[in-house]
Each structure stands twice: as structure tokens, then as C-alpha cells.
């Protein structure tokens, strides 16, 4: 692979990653005429695009979350279905991150570039598993790109939550979880672990849960936490957006025990800073080992890093003899926060 060859047709402009021969952006940070969207999280799926290509699930999520801001023209692409755009061919493959999340394979003049968006390799009952796509250029996230991040078995973390409910049956267990993806995965994991009781949810989580169910992901009995009798919430599991768990909203709960489901919970200072009493290390992002293994398995000799802890990952990429480049895209957030 000649150095600099990809830069000729995949560039970074003020709105993010741009494919010149296809005339589209991938996950642009503001409104564009044509976008390919990897998944529905708000830092990837921005409002106001004229046209967007994405999986049917991602398009439905954008409709539900963006309302008026949803793309005016939508093109649904199934996983594995090649689509010609200008001079390139685009194919979406499962990224394993959340429902509908996709990696974008762009083929141009015999070269294969994969923009992976956000991804994880560990199992998730609520979305299609990550598919490895061999390529020459792999564009990766680096949210948890430090060797201290090893996410471990999410089932064991859910077992910790269930044990705490048994140990403290008079306390409402309020779990901070991001509304799209984490919430539904947590519910599905609880159900897998045999937890049959109704799970109470904050109003902001309802629409995404409905959407998952409409795509055939069963979540069991859910009840709105707002308006529930205080006594009913004793010993109950209550899910809420992270911003609500230790703020005024949580005062309605009886003696709340604050839990938080996030990859960041692996670091103690991080959990303590947020006043978390029960940290649950459950992440929808690749951990260090998944990132480094994936990079190796794609066979790519060139790796671009979009956002996160680029320093460590670039050090790894270069010390394993690959070409690495930090894209420093603006507008990306750690949505676990």
C-alpha cells in the first residue's frame, strides 16, 4: 500500500470524514447534503441532513429521536448489500455496538476502507454481532484505548446488581444507563439472568425501548418510574439516564442506591467522582484487547483513529509496524457519560 493513497479520496473537512468519489460524509458533525450514518447515537446521527444512507433500524432511530431534524431523504441498506454511490461501492456490516449499528465498507479502485463507527466484539442479545471485514484501511474508535480497560463478562456485573437487590431489598436500585443501547442491553441481560420482575424506567428511556421491541427485541415488563408508588420502588431496579441518577429526579425514590452501567466504571476514581455506589462495568465499546485484536484481524496496514485515547492506540499501532493516523474529529462525545 502506497502511503498517502487513501488521503486522495478519503479526507477530513470541517464536517468530518468525507469520501470524494462518492460525494458523501460518514457521520458528519453538522448537516450535509449526503451522509452515511453508522448508528443512531446523537454524536454520530446529527439532525438536518438532506439525504442519508443507513440500516433500517438506524433510520427508524433517527426518525424517533430527531423528529423534524431527521434526514429528508432516507435510503435503507441491509447488512451485506452492496450499494453503488458515485464511483464507489458502499456495504454496511454489523458493528455490534447498538441496534442497527454498522461498519461502512467503501470500495474504490480495488482498495477497501472500513469506517467502523463505534463497535464491540462481546456478545449483546439486543443487536447483530460484529462482523470482521478484511480491509486495507481500518478507521477505528479509541474510546477505551488503554490497557486498563478490559470489560469482562457483562453477565457477572448484572449478577452483582441482582445480588445487591437481594442484600438491600428496602432500597431502590437506580441504574444510570444511556438511553439508546445500554438501557436495552441491560434489560435483556437482566432477563437472561432470570430477573422477571417489572423494571422501572425513566420517561426519557421509553421511546428507545418501544423501538427495540418493534424490531423484535423482547424486554419483558417495563413500568414508568415517574408516578409509581414510592413503596413499590423499594427493592426495584429503576433505569434512568446518567444525568438523572444523582439529581433531583432521584429524590422520588426510596433510599436510592446509585448504580451506573458504563465502561468507565472500571476506574475507581471515575466511579467515586460521580457518587456511584455500585459500579457496573458494562460497555458497548471495544475494550483494549478487542481494539488491538480487531486491528490485527482486519489485515489493514493503515489505521486511522477517530476519537478517544488516541495516544495509546497510535503507540500500539506504530509499534506493531502499521501506519497510524489520528483524525481528531470534532463533535464526538463519550456517550457513556
Amino acid at each position: 500500500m502506497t502511503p498517502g493513497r487513501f488521503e486522495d479520496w478519503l479526507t477530513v473537512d470541517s464536517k468530518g470524514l468525507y469520501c470524494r468519489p462518492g460525494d458523501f460524509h460518514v457521520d458528519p458533525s453538522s448537516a450535509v447534503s449526503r451522509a452515511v450514518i453508522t448508528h443512531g447515537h446523537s454524536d454520530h446521527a446529527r439532525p438536518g441532513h438532506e439525504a442519508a444512507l443507513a440500516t433500517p433500524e438506524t433510520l427508524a432511530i433517527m426518525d424517533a429521536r430527531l423528529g423534524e431534524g431527521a434526514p429528508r431523504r432516507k435510503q435503507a441498506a441491509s447488512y451485506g448489500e452492496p450499494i453503488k454511490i458515485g464511483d464507489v461501492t458502499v456495504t454496511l456490516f454489523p458493528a455490534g455496538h447498538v441496534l442497527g449499528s454498522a461498519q461502512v465498507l467503501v470500495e474504490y479502485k480495488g482498495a477497501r476502507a472500513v469506517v467502523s463507527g463505534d463497535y464491540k466484539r462481546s456478545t449483546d442479545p439486543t443487536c447483530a454481532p460484529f462482523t470482521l471485514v478484511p480491509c486495507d484501511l481500518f478507521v477505528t474508535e479509541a474510546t477505551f484505548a488503554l490497557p486498563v480497560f478490559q470489560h469482562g463478562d457483562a453477565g457477572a456485573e448484572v449478577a452483582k446488581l441482582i445480588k445487591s437487590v437481594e442484600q438491600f431489598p428496602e432500597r431502590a436500585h437506580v441504574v444510570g444507563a444511556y438511553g439508546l443501547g445500554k438501557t436495552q442491553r441491560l434489560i435483556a441481560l437482566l432477563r437472561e439472568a432470570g430477573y422477571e420482575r417489572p423494571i422501572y424506567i425513566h420517561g426519557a428511556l421509553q421511546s428507545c425501548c418501544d423501538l427495540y421491541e418493534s424490531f423484535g427485541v423482547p424486554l419483558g415488563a417495563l413500568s414508568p418510574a415517574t408516578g409509581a408508588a414510592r413503596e413499590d420502588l423499594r427493592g426495584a431496579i429503576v433505569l434512568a439516564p446518567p444525568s438523572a441518577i444523582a439529581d433531583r429526579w432521584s429524590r422520588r425514590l426510596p433510599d436510592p442506591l446509585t448504580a451506573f452501567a458504563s465502561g468507565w466504571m472500571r476506574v475507581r476514581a471515575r466511579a467515586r467522582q460521580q457518587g456511584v455506589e455500585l459500579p457496573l462495568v458494562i460497555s458497548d465499546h471495544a475494550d483494549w484487547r478487542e481494539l488491538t485484536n480487531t486491528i490485527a484481524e482486519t489485515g489493514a496496514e493503515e489505521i486511522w483513529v477517530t476519537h478517544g485515547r488516541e495516544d495509546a492506540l497510535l503507540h500500539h499501532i506504530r509499534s506493531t509496524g502499521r501506519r497510524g493516523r489520528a483524525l481528531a474529529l470534532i463533535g464526538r462525545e463519550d456517550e457513556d457519560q
Partner: protein
Amino acid sequence: MKAFSALLDRLAYTPSRNDKLRLMADYFAGAPDPDRGYALAVLTDGLFFRVPFRRIFAEMLEARVDPVLFKLSRDYVGDTAETIALLWPAREESQEPPPLAEVVKAVQDAKPEAITRLLAGWLDQLDATGRWALLKLLTGALRVGVSARLAKTALAQWSGKPLSEIEEIWHGLTPPYQPLFAWLTGNGPRPDIRGSAVFRPLMLAHAIEERELAAITPSDFAAEWKWDGIRVQACHQGGAKRLFSRTGDDISGAFPDVVEGLPEGAVLDGELLVMRGGDVAPFNDLQQRLNRKTVTGAMLKSHPAHIRLYDLLFEGDEDLRALPFMERRARLEAWHGTHAPSRTDVSEIVAFESIAELEALWAGARETGIEGLMLKRHDSPYIGGRPKGHWYKWKRAPLMIDAVLLYAQRGSGKRSSYYSDYTFGAWREGEHGAPELVPVGKSYFGFTDEELKQLDNFVRSNTVDSFGPVRQVMPKLVFEVAFDSVHHSKRHKSGVAMRFPRIHRIRWDKPAEEADTLQTLQAMIVD
């Protein structure tokens, strides 16, 4: 190791005392012997390992981790032991980690050069929480917010045995406490500790209320000055000399000067003070000698310690605790007359005919270090704990200033949704002569739950800036802050440090300009 790591992990994140008790009680109920005994030793600070961790960590990491990645990780995590625990390459196949007891014994028996391999082997078998717990346990930096007293309280709650009985025998026992657990589970007799130098629970006083004060019959009570030091128990029994804090922590190592001269056979109750030339030094001076494992020669000279004796609990084999106070007092005076141990004196009995006279005496007492008065019933036996109706403490009215709320920080636990920790300031002349507020103290109690809600609302609607969990507010709310004393401090920008400040009253009515000045506070400094 698994159950123990899970316990430490939960304790580290659990702010509530009662919840900590429940977590420990559940552990003691479920864990086998001798694991739970070693766990108890860890929680009560009873295990020390002399292991060169710096060298061991360096050796282990060199073979396993890229130094650049380690540094980036360490910077992110902020703690070396935790970083190692987190980035240790996990094995694919899970293995049963060794029991806690096995780990403790192996480290105690291992040759220094064998420890690195031993430790690496365990780290391979444990998960991240287990690795963290192991490293914390071995480096002795647990920080899970459990005192020895709390761990013993958990034992009492779980077993149904009174805490005072556990305290009574505690210091006669050693890890892994097999006879103790046998007794607690009904499988053995109560361990016998007669004649050994162990801590006996202290008798504590109640704060007197006005109506109780009015009901006091002067002829039934003895009065003593209440000195501003720390309550201690000193003993020399079974060949060992010991000094214990009021919670039973052994602080002998830091106070060789007072321990040295203790005559054989005595168990004494008194106040530990720093004294120079017969005068009690301010509490701040004693503070310099507390919370240390050992003491320097220079410190022994500049801050000499002394015990002012209140009571005699044992003389030889004779347990005096059932005797009335006045009889014990006579025995104490006779004993002190016979042995005249260095660095001790007997607390003075303040004669009084009426409460009014006592109050006048007190008002006239100009000595530093007097914190108030103690009133003890002549016929009180010595009962560990805080029995009602025997001893009263009558403390000096606290000092008070009006200060302005400057910053509020989120609380923890039940209060994590509230801005409940308040930093307040006093006025001083700033640059160019304009008045400015300088922080003088911080407090998170003294107010009611209802007031907390009002304060939280005030903070949210008057925020001018925020830094993580801290909000800076408009300087316009005045607190009447009560405190015990104020001292010079180099660590604080204001140059003063308040002792035990609490929010006495919220002065919603008072304009901030009328709050007190730093000068007012400086004038209250006694040292």
C-alpha cells in the same frame, strides 16, 4: 479470596454506615474459617506485611507491559496498584483463586526473592477486583472506610453478642481469631483474657441538658475539669505496657514517653495531653503527635506527652470496675501516691456546694485546655459504653461567627443529589483596599433536612460557576457558624483553621456585608 474481594469492593463504594455493617455481617455469616478471621484482621488493621512493593511491581511490569502504555494508564487511573490490577493480562480460562488465608500465610512465610513469582501467580488467577483487593491488602492501603470499631460492631450485629464483650476480650486475641469465631458461633467458650494487657471499653458521658443540670443534687456528684486532649486507657499487665485510644486502637508506639513509666498491674483511665512546665498545651500541639506510628526524638522534646488520670480500673488482679466512683477515686489517689509514675497526675476534684458556684468557678477558670466540666455520680460503677444517669459532660458554649457561603459541593450517599458541603468565608481587606471574602472553613452538618432542601435550592439558583461537583455561588447567604476553637494554619489561604465547625443557624435575613471579618476570627485564636 473471591468473597473477600467482593466485600472490599462494595465497602469502598458504600457510604452508609448501616449498609457497611450489613455487608460485613453477611460476609462473616458466609465465609469459612480461617478466611473470615484474616478478613477481620485486615479490616481492623491487624495485619502488616513487610514487602518491598516498589521493586516487586517494577519486576513484574518489566516482563509484561509496554512502559509507554503503562505510563499513559497510570496517569489516567491515578493509582499504581489499581493500574496494575486493571491492566494485568487476564487469562482466558478462569481459575479458582486461592483462599484468603492461604495468601496471607504464604506471604508471611515467603522469602523476599520468591514474592514476585508468588504474587504474579495469584494475579494470573484473580479477576480485576480480586487483583485490586490483593494489592491493596498487601500494600496496607485499604481505604474502604471501615474502622476497627465498625468491623467489631458488625461482628456483634451478626452474632448477637454484645459489642462491649467483644471489645473486652478483643485485645487479647490474634489473627485469625479462631477462638473468637468459635465463641461467636456458639461453638466454644468465651476467650479468657484475664491478666493480659488488653483494652477494656471506656465509660463515656452524656452531654448534660438544662433540666438535668437543674435536677443535680450537688452532694451526690463529684466535679472534674474536662480537659481538651484525647481520652486514653493506659495499662501495664502481663508484662506488656500499652496505651489505647478511646476506640481501643493501640497508640503505644507514638507515645513511648508516657508508656515507659507505667507501673506493673494497673489499668488507668485518663486524658492524654501535651504539657510544658505544668501547663496544658493547646489541642493543636497534641494533634502533631497523633496519627503516627512512631515519634521522633525532637518531637518527644518539643511536644512532651502527659496523662491526667481520671480513674483506676484494675489494681493487680483486682477488677475495681464494680466499685462506686468515690471508692475507685480513693484507690487511684492511694495508688498514685505509692507509685508516683512519671508523666502523670491525678485530675483535680472541683469542690462545689451549688451549680451556681460551679458555674462561677468555671467562668473564672483561665487555664487553657479546659473544655468544660464533668459531673460524676459518687456511686457510679465503671460501665463500658455510655450508660445513662451516671456521668455528664458540661461543655463550654461554642464560639460563633457569621460567615458567607462561597462554595457548595455535592454530598455522598443519601445526600448525593444535594449540594450539602459548604465552604464559607469572612471579610478581609483585599488588594487596593476593597473588601473581599476569603474561605475560612467548611461544614456539612448542623442544619435540618428541611433546611438542606432550602440550601440546595439556594445553591442551584445562585450558581455563578461550577467545577465538577463544586458550585460557586453568589456571596449573599450568611451562616452563623459554631465551632470549638480556631488555630493558626499554614495550609489554609486564610491562615486560620477552625475546629469542628457546624452550621448553627442560617441567617436568610442578614446581608452579607454584615458578616464577620477575618480579624474577628484571628482574635479568637488561643495558641
